[in-house]
């Protein structure tokens, strides 16, 4: 292919390259902050937190003597003056809390630290491959033979996040020593969109693999 007649890469790629560079600096800064904290937490210093959802049945008692009792989907108001104009809760509230993992609960602490370390590693894996992908496109080689592999690694990085979260939360639910009626987990919402994006990236990798095959065929066509 005569590269001298190909226009320079479009503005979109230049902007994307800048954005990826910005992400890289953000991740470097984030890693510089997070890594020492993770190491400290691994040695028992600092605090580790998990999210908790209060399990029913429970009763919320207020200082004025009023109380709300929740059992399953049913709610009971005690000492409330409920009239026709009263506005009460339409549905059972979800009570969440940020709970500090006790120093003695080593298992849970290890799992939480491992989860954060895995997420950080996934972010780096994704970013390194994304940067190489964008750079190859900027060097007029969008269908370089390495790019389908880079997309697959990017997909793996994205898909690993909900998998690590699911596994980690399943382990924490068993290992947690907290003697309070909370369902504990490390909160990482939006798992469905992560799976959709990960699978989308895998599909894109196969499209790129086909494009590489076509490019190689075209280059060997005289």
């Amino acid at each position, binding site marked *: 292919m005569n590269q001298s007649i190909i226009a320079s890469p479009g503005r979109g790629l230049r902007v994307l390259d800048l954005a990826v560079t910005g992400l890289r600096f953000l991740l470097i800064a984030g890693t510089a902050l997070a890594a020492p904290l993770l190491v400290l937490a691994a040695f028992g210093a600092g605090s580790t937190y998990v999210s908790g959802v209060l399990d029913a049945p429970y009763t919320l008692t207020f200082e004025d003597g009023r109380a709300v009792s929740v059992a399953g989907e049913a709610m009971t108001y005690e000492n409330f003056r409920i009239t026709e104009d009263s506005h009460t809760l339409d549905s059972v509230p979800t009570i969440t809390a940020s709970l500090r993992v006790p120093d003695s609960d080593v298992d849970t602490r290890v799992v939480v630290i491992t989860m954060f370390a895995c997420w950080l590693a996934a972010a780096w894996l994704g970013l390194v491959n994304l940067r190489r992908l964008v750079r190859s496109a900027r060097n007029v080689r969008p269908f370089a033979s390495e790019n389908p592999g880079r997309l697959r690694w990017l997909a793996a990085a994205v898909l690993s996040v909900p998998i690590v979260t699911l596994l980690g939360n399943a382990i924490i639910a068993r290992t947690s020593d907290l003697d309070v009626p909370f369902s504990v987990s490390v909160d990482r919402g939006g798992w469905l969109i992560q799976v959709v994006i990960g699978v989308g990236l895998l599909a894109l990798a196969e499209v790129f693999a086909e494009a590489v095959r076509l490019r190689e065929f075209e280059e*060997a066509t*005289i």
Partner: protein
Amino acid sequence: MPIIVSLDSVLEERGMTLTELSEAVGITLANLSILKTGKAKAVRFSTLEAICQVLDCQPGDILGFEE
């Protein structure tokens, strides 16, 4: 590959080098080498036409099929 390229023998018969052929048909020497060594995956009709015109031959003189 089942398609056999016999460009060498035709060039020898015509007393022409690969470089002279590439200059005559306007295809780079590198691409003609790919064709000659059987590494090409496809040949355009326009390329075949140009080669056959210069070498005064038929496509069958330079391309063969062998299972």
